[in-house]
């Protein structure tokens, strides 16, 4: 399966995402922010980093990159998209996902191994997990506080669209400990934690992150 990984100027974890896709058995395809098409990929990962320096508002400039045109169109037609950290911020800015990510409550960047609970295995990117399964994956962000109005949060909960929640301490003040959400179709997922940094016990705290990338491949294989 061909999985595109977009590199914006300032993307940092793009190579890690490429590695994670390959480890999970996919075929990573590098996409450039200025690309006019998606090169026939069957899914896309928007990686972590500081696209365009995040000088305006995180993800706000990347959202207008040329590659986002075809991406938005394809996502509307059912293309699975995973936004990690800065990628999550881009997806919120693009309105593919509800809510926004704001400065951490303690006003500091935080990098730590974070316990998480997978709340839903119904999304394209979490189907390899059991609902309620606890995993450990690094978080690292300065603006990772997830916020949305109460009604949106209620409906996300009611519709099972909170896919991931912080356990044992909320690192950034996210509303209702939310670490990841999906859109109504379950194909577009945004996560603040970095599963691509938990794919090899040598360089990460666990291999718990592989499931996000494997989910996608299983789903396609099963289809």
């Amino acid at each position: 399966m061909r999985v595109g990984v977009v590199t914006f100027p300032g993307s940092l974890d793009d190579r890690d995402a490429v590695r994670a896709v390959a480890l999970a058995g996919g075929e990573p395809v590098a996409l450039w922010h200025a690309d006019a098409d998606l090169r026939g990929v069957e899914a896309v990962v928007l990686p972590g980093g500081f696209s365009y320096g995040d000088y305006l508002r995180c993800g706000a400039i990347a959202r207008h990159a040329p590659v986002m045109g075809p991406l938005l169109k394809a996502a509307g037609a059912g293309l699975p998209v995973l936004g990690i950290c800065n990628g999550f911020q881009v997806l919120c800015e693009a309105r593919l996902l509800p809510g926004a990510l704001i400065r951490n409550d303690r006003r500091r960047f935080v990098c730590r191994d974070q316990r998480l609970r997978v709340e839903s295995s119904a999304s394209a990117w979490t189907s390899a997990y059991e609902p309620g399964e606890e995993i450990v994956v690094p978080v690292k962000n300065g603006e990772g506080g997830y916020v949305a109005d109460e009604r949106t949060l209620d409906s996300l909960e009611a519709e099972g669209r909170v896919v991931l929640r912080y356990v044992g301490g909320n690192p950034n003040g996210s509303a209702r400990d939310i670490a990841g959400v999906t859109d109504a179709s379950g194909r577009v997922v945004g996560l603040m934690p970095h599963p691509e940094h938990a794919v090899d016990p040598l360089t990460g705290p666990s291999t718990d992150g592989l499931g996000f990338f494997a989910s996608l491949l299983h789903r396609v294989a099963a289809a």
Partner: protein
Amino acid sequence: MTDTVEHAAKTPDVEQPWAALGLRGDEYARIRETLGRRPTSCELAIYSVMWSEHCSYKSSKVHLRRFTELPDETPLGKTLAGIGENAGVVDIGQGYAATFKVESHNHPSFVEPYQGAATGVGGIVRDILAMGARPVALLDPLRFGPADAPDTRRVLPGVVAGIAGYGNCLGLPTVGGEVVFDSSYAGNPLVNVLCVGVMRHEDVHRAHASGVGNRVVLYGARTGGDGIGGVSVLASETFGDEGPSKRPSVQVGDPFLEKLLIECTLELFGEGLVAGIQDLGGAGLSCATSELASAGDGGMHITLDRVPLRDASLTPEEILMSESQERMMAVVRPADVERFLAVCAKWDVPATVLGEVTDTGRLVVEWAGEVVVDVPPRTVASEGPVYQRPYARPQAQDALIAAGSDRLPRPAGGAELRETLLRMAAAPNLSAKTWVTEQYDRYVQGSTVLAQPEDAGVIRVDADSGLGVAVATDGNARFVALDPYAGAQLALAEAYRNVAVTGARPLAVTDCLNFGSPEDPGVMWQFAEAVRGLADGCRVLGVPVTGGNVSFYNSTGDTAVLPTPVVGVLGVLDDVRRRTPLGFSRAGAALFQLGETRDELDGSEWANVVHGHLGGVPPRVDLEAERRLAEILVAASGEGLLDAAHDLADGGLAQALVESCLRGGSGARVEVPEGTDPFAFLFAESAARAVVALSPGAEARFSELCAEHDYPVERIGVIADAGPDSRVDPELELRDLFTIPLAELREAHERTLPDLFD
């Protein structure tokens, strides 16, 4: 009007502000003699910054020769680049090379902690990049005033946020460093940054401008008025008060642009479009042009009007001096210029051809169609003044040495030892540094195998073979104050040991020498002794000094900071899967202590924390022993004999046990060997020691290994209860003395910095 060369030749008697620019009278006279006329204001600006202590090393040069006299060989062979290049380069095997260097950004970080620290990161990263390498990791050795001092609450959070803000945004993992508090740093924090880069042998680049007719290209950020120090004197001299004078002297960083600069430069290297390269750091264009020219064919001609500006009102003097960040200068063959500019455009990096390489032996700068600089570049860059500063052992040194720690009351009995251990584990210098290190991204690039609080940062270089590098920095300034020669060697020994503890073979050294005023003979003595100690130490250990930095004039009020040589050691692991972590995790693993514990408490953290005392003589240095210890640790790691290993240093064995137990979440049962004083056993800071936890069934082979190396080794206990799954609450037990539940230990060790800085 512009002060041209022609004008200067006609007006020899114009008063020039050389003193305000920091030049001495004899230095100014020497410039006039070199040029055969008075310098233009642009030339005066160039000489004044290039002959500053920071750029010229004029006070330290005579001593630093000891480093260049060392054999330029690591245990793996000849160095690929050494002192004099932007950073040293060593062979790490399998066709790979590593480059690394540590630099200081002390003074700016006191004035403006966030930007001072941030641009400190930016500067050293460009040095590494200029060697042809991809930067792969950062380490940050930091020194602050007392942890509870009000100003430390301003400086520390700003410095840490600056390093995090810049380093994280660049995509460089921060994997190590130190945080040390001492009142001597209250008005002068030390912010040192070490960067490591990796490349293939054939990709090593050098800073020289060769090939007559090759183009000189400036690329990266536009030039602004930031970072102009003394030159504002010139500007106001030329233009009166309405000119753009008194610019902020702290630079402002743009990490996003630096990230683009890295990717753009690596692509330029990859395409073979770079004939020579130099980063722009201290002294900006003055430094880059004169250093490139003097290292190459000896001449360069540039047109200063072409420099893209952020501020159109800048004078030529200011443009030459500006320390605007995120800029590089490349020498490019004419046929490659078009492709070079295209790569820059792809990355949205502004690039401008400023001029070309010549063989005239002159650096010529034009402004508005007239020549404003015409100097022999070597007189600027490499043939500046050199001083033999007077130095003398201070008289107070004898009294300092005489006031040893032996008269200080010591804890006796289990209860007092327990209380002392908890108190020390919570002291700012020994407490957990998570509050700081959690702000650094240690995962980015996906190759971090070990990061702080491990003894050394370990980065995987080749995912297939597992080849990797380990880097550690250390420097116990209290020991250096007591004996600069021995203290510097102890810093070297500790960094060397910290690399070896992870299983890596130490290869090479970089150092950042932070001292007070070189005009103080006592400080100069500390400096000379420290350099001599380091050089002699490197000779014994068989490792070269491949580069570094000197920072003088560090003082709080009139009092110099503790003499603080920070030593960075780089080592290599053939397979990072064999690395040894420091956490105790497997119940039943036997604990052994390597090395000899003596009653060495002078200058120790115990004397500092409990008695606020500094005096006596530092622990005995035995570099032969350090070398053998490293051989044991590296061999044991390679043979898979070790579950965990931790070096013993500040706070002694007690501190090592605290850290290893908490890191792995396991308790330990430890027994004081017969005939040993429990206090010294726990808190002495004797060098050349480590504690290890053995793998199952490794005991016989490990003992044999120690015997082969004729090294003292003693079984001191066992790892008790493993991990969070255990049903028993883990404890650290000192048999017949005391027991501390890990939860209590963790509370003591981990609360200190959050309580102070949250």
